[in-house]
């Protein structure tokens, strides 16, 4: 189980589910309103270079785990510090996602069930999955991705009767600023959360696999899919409803009513949400425990899983105390850490890694002439 590796397509499925994860039920790019499809395009264009950087990082470390790569780049103590930061980031994200799901489920279908119960149920599953490792998660997601796609695309196809394309007009009535606001929100959540997958570099990139083939298709597919879902919701609900409800996709799908029989499909949204969210929490916790293990200087991460996973039960309550708070999104600290973790730190790694690598290459090239 030490040499974990994941085939490319399974990896792409993992990335897809990770990005779709918990994000699609929320009103993504809420500020942009009817122009959100523009926000999506802008966000995709802005995110792609960064995703490429993540892929490049994976490639530079290939064969090694993230922590090993860090170690080689920065030496012992700085690498441990960075690993600690990433571990915390991943853990916090895991808690937030858990909070999202428990809040969603309570708000939407199980009002009397305490959130702790949902969180515990999730924690147990996640505990199991994380202990099994990345390979199992990838296999899990490659089966589930078929269901998720099938279910959501069917629901969307059925919803086309409700779609009113007029809702997208007028374009850019309120100017570009809301579009950019929406795009930045999309970058932070969920696009650049992909940075966590760099932590699984050695599993996603092997000699046969290229990291780009894992990250890029997964990311693009997920981004376009999210765009489709969000745009369809706007076209169904209208801009105003999209902005004022917590879970617009849920409402949009609830509108489907075909021949009095194909109705009440909103459960489908809950199902996909639960699956994607589960995968996201698992990946977060996997990364958190791997990085924490490195920060504390242990080669194996599995013994850390139980306490970390159990801590998301209180953690989910702690970070997201209510639906409102959860929807408020980034607080000050969150925005700052997100920028640091998603953009600044990977850029630094990338720069350092490239310089080191070119030196190594030069040395190799220089040797024969020297001898």
């Amino acid at each position: 189980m030490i040499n974990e590796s994941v085939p490319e397509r399974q990896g792409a499925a993992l990335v897809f589910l990770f990005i779709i994860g918990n994000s699609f039920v929320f009103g993504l790019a809420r500020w942009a309103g009817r122009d959100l499809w523009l926000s999506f395009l802008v966000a995709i264009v802005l995110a792609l270079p960064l995703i490429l950087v993540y892929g490049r990082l994976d490639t530079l470390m290939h064969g090694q785990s993230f922590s090993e790569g860090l170690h080689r780049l920065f030496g012992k103590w700085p690498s441990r510090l960075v690993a600690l930061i990433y571990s915390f980031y991943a853990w916090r994200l895991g808690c937030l996602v858990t909070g999202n799901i428990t809040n969603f489920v309570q708000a939407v279908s199980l009002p009397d069930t305490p959130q702790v119960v949902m969180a515990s149920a999730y924690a147990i599953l996640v505990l199991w999955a994380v202990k099994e490792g990345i390979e199992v998660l990838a296999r899990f997601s490659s089966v589930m991705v078929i269901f998720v796609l099938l279910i959501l695309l069917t629901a969307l196809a059925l919803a086309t009767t409700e779609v009113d394309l007029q809702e997208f007009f007028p374009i850019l009535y309120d100017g570009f600023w809301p579009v950019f606001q929406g795009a930045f929100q999309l970058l932070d959540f969920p696009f650049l959360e992909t940075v966590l997958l760099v932590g699984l570099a050695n599993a996603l990139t092997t000699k046969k696999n290229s990291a780009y083939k894992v990250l890029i298709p997964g990311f693009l597919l997920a981004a376009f899919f999210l765009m489709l879902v969000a745009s369809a919701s706007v076209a169904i609900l209208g801009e105003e409803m999209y902005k004022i409800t917590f879970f617009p996709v849920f409402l949009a799908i609830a509108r489907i009513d075909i021949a009095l029989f194909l109705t009440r499909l909103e459960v489908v949204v809950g199902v996909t949400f639960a699956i994607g969210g589960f995968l996201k929490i698992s990946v977060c916790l996997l990364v958190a425990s791997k990085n924490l293990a490195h920060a504390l200087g242990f080669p194996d991460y599995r013994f850390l899983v139980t306490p970390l996973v159990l801590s998301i039960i209180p953690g989910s309550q702690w970070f997201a105390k209510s639906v409102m708070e959860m929807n408020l999104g980034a607080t000050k600290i969150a925005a700052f850490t997100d920028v640091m973790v998603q953009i600044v730190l990977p850029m630094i790694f990338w720069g350092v890694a490239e310089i080191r690598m070119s030196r190594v290459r030069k040395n190799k090239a220089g040797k024969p002439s020297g001898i």
Partner: protein
Amino acid sequence: MLIVIVLGYVVVGGVELFLWKERPWQEVLVYLLLLSATATFSVLLTIDAQLPVPEPLGTLWNWLQKLWQ
């Protein structure tokens, strides 16, 4: 309730330790520390559901802003 939570953590920890065959003592120590930290966290949150999220960077930010002005 608190007793139930603590008991739950004790049971989980006990079972896991029992299932492990041989672990270096450092790992066991770290495991126990983390588990007790989690238990404390849970207990704290049960006592006060509105436990504030610390914002060290937020205060730093405020302080910087003040300094700027």
